[in-house]
């Protein structure tokens, strides 16, 4: 009994460690613990209570290690062994207070996962770490790992998760989503830009642009000069995926394996916009170059003739730009609309060209119309032509907390052959029953 007790006291002292706010003696702990036992409190619970009482944070006996691929959202006290694939700081404001958090990607032999560290654990890329008391949450549809005050992170031997274990996994471009590490993609370089940035006081060339395969397009950033050219078809192994407004961005550096393949593997004409139902797009939270179809359910405020700032292109309020003050505005025309296919809903923004094409009137004609019949007449015209009609939009789909907005490069009313379609449904119905 006494031996048992002393083991528990050791545990408590260990847990309190250096972090203990209050000095406490062995004798004192023993006294307290015995009191609890007299009252019939289970030992584990007594131990936990005492650790709390003396200012420590209770760490449950180390749980079994979980593989990243098996993590589910809503788990507490998670224990993982991972390699840090990517980590970046981020300044955020929480309740008016500026805070620095860290986010990145971790991986083990089973896969990879995004994490957010709510304080600085001094993680660095390439570290292999033993993490206990992390918790998981669902964020934007994916499971993410979170490190808070209770989380313990210890650096450990790098050979425990050798880089070679993290065999890159092959993905099609349409399946890329943020948080994936050790990705292998074969794609055609569609656009390539070089720019110079300063990293830790050193100038460095960064190569970025657009790539694509027959399933879709994505952005990429390479921190190493792989002598890529537009039109090359390359196999990139060992990148990871970040995303901006739901648009996946493949990021890789000199550690990646980049290999040119026969350029006919993916010819230019194989690359078409990704066709999606709206719920698919909403659940993906954004994508590059999509083509979607849905019914126009609303012409939103802000549609019609607008004046833009000649400096920054922002829409003016009166003659005022929110950045450049009173300016001589440039006339423009746009439609902001809500498109809904019954499975999901997105916003669309149509530029002057698309608007003129859909309405069959030029900006000047619409301006005249507005002068004679009032501004409202333009919105009425848009409603007459578009409301309750099916429209097809092509462009980049950007996601944020309010949903998806498609910046349309092209927009056209969809052709629907009601007869053919209804016959098809009839046939499918027979198969169903």
């Amino acid at each position, binding site marked *: 009994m006494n031996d048992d007790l002393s083991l528990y006291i050791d545990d408590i002292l260990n847990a309190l460690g250096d972090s203990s706010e209050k000095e406490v003696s062995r004798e004192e702990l023993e006294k307290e613990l015995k009191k609890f036992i007299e009252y019939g409190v289970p030992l584990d619970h007594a131990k936990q209570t005492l650790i709390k009482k003396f200012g420590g944070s209770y760490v449950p006996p180390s749980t079994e290690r979980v593989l990243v691929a098996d993590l589910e959202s809503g788990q507490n006290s998670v224990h993982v062994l991972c390699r840090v694939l990517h980590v970046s700081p981020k300044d955020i404001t929480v309740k008016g207070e500026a805070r620095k958090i860290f986010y990145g990607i971790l991986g083990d032999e089973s896969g990879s996962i995004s994490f957010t560290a709510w304080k600085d654990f001094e993680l660095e890329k390439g570290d292999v770490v033993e993490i206990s008391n992390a918790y998981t949450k669902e964020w934007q549809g994916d499971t993410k790992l979170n490190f808070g005050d209770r989380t313990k992170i210890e650096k450990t031997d790098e050979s425990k998760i050798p880089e070679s274990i993290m065999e890159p996994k092959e993905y099609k471009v349409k399946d890329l989503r943020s948080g994936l590490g050790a990705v292998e993609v074969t794609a055609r370089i569609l656009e390539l830009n070089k720019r110079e940035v300063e990293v830790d006081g050193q100038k460095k060339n960064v190569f970025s642009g657009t790539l694509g395969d027959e399933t879709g397009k994505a952005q990429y950033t390479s921190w190493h000069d792989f002598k890529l050219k537009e039109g090359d078809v390359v196999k990139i192994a060992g990148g990871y995926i970040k995303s901006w407004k739901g648009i996946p961005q493949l990021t890789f550096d000199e550690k990646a394996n980049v290999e040119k393949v026969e350029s006919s593997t993916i010819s230019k004409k194989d690359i078409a916009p990704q066709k999606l*139902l*709206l*719920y*698919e797009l909403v*659940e993906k939270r954004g994508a590059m170059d999509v083509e979607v179809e849905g*019914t126009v*359910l*609303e012409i939103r405020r802000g549609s019609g003739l607008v004046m833009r700032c000649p400096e920054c292109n922002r829409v003016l309020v009166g003659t005022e730009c929110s950045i450049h003050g009173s300016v001589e505005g440039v006339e423009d025309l746009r439609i902001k609309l*809500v498109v*809904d296919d*019954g*499975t*999901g*809903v997105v*916003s669309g923004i149509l530029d002057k060209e698309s608007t003129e094409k859909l309405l069959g009137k030029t900006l000047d004609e619409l301006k005249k119309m507005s002068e004679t019949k009032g501004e409202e007449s333009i919105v009425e015209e848009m*409603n007459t032509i578009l*409301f*309750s*009609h*099916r429209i097809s939009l092509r462009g980049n789909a950007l996601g944020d*907390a*309010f*949903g998806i907005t498609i910046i349309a490069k092209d927009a056209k009313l969809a052709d*629907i052959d*009601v*007869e053919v*379609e*209804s*016959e098809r*449904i*009839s046939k*499918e*119905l027979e198969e*169903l*029953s």
Partner: protein
Amino acid sequence: MRRELAWRVFAGEYNDSTLEIKGVGEKTPSHIITPLGSKVNRLFVVGVLTDVENVSEGGEFVRAHISDPTGVFTLYSGQFQQDATDQLLNIDAPAFVAVVGKIRTYTPDDGELYVSIRPETVREVTADARARWILETCRQTKQRIGAVTEAMKMNEPNAGELRNLGYSRELSEGIVAALKEYDTVDISKYLAIVRESLQYITPSKEAAPDLHLEEVIEKKEAKKEAKTKKPAEKKEKASKELKSDDSEETENTVLDAIKKLEGEDGAAWDLIMENCKKAGLDEDSIEEALTSLMDKGFIFEPVLGTIKTT
């Protein structure tokens, strides 16, 4: 806050709904779960506006009915939806209209759920718009039938498995909720609804069931052009009543009872029940009659639990 999507659901499915999941707090919206698992907060409907009437004295509060191939949607619109209310009052029924609206529910003391629509947008549209809507609603109803059928095969229907089959998150969640609420979903009824609705848009030798309605509208258009305005008895023509004599008789009994009870402030729900039961009717048929009378616009509910004739 994210915008809620607009479901395509036939009246025949929407009006069968008995489950509402109320949102908690301001930020979570309420949803109606239909028997086929639509998780509806907003809908898009195109159909025939058959009648509009002001149901409140003084203020503007209108009730309107929109007929689709499977049944009738009831709309209530007041001063908080001024644009929609104005539109409803200005459109000359019958007419094809497209409506975007939010769910609206009413639960009398007995706990039954009555569903209707609070319109956000109403616009007069063409017959083509209705054909497109019927097509889309057929397709999506069929899709839901397929999903419910799959879910019923599962040992324990769950959203994860449905999503793996390629159904959207919202539909998957809706179906799981629906299977809990509705003990048996009458799949054959909804299959029939889709089949019948398809006939409206598939040209065939058989005359489309509501051809006379289109005629009414065509005549109306012609009249408009000829500028000869006559008060038409279009309401009678437009409402396609297939009720048996029996239920008509019940409705008359109930209506009489209300008239006797109502006075200036309307008749209490309980009293109507009591009196009609004395007249030999059972609770179910009284309720059915009340719903039907409300749909037809003979009665309305100025205050919860009180019925008045129009």
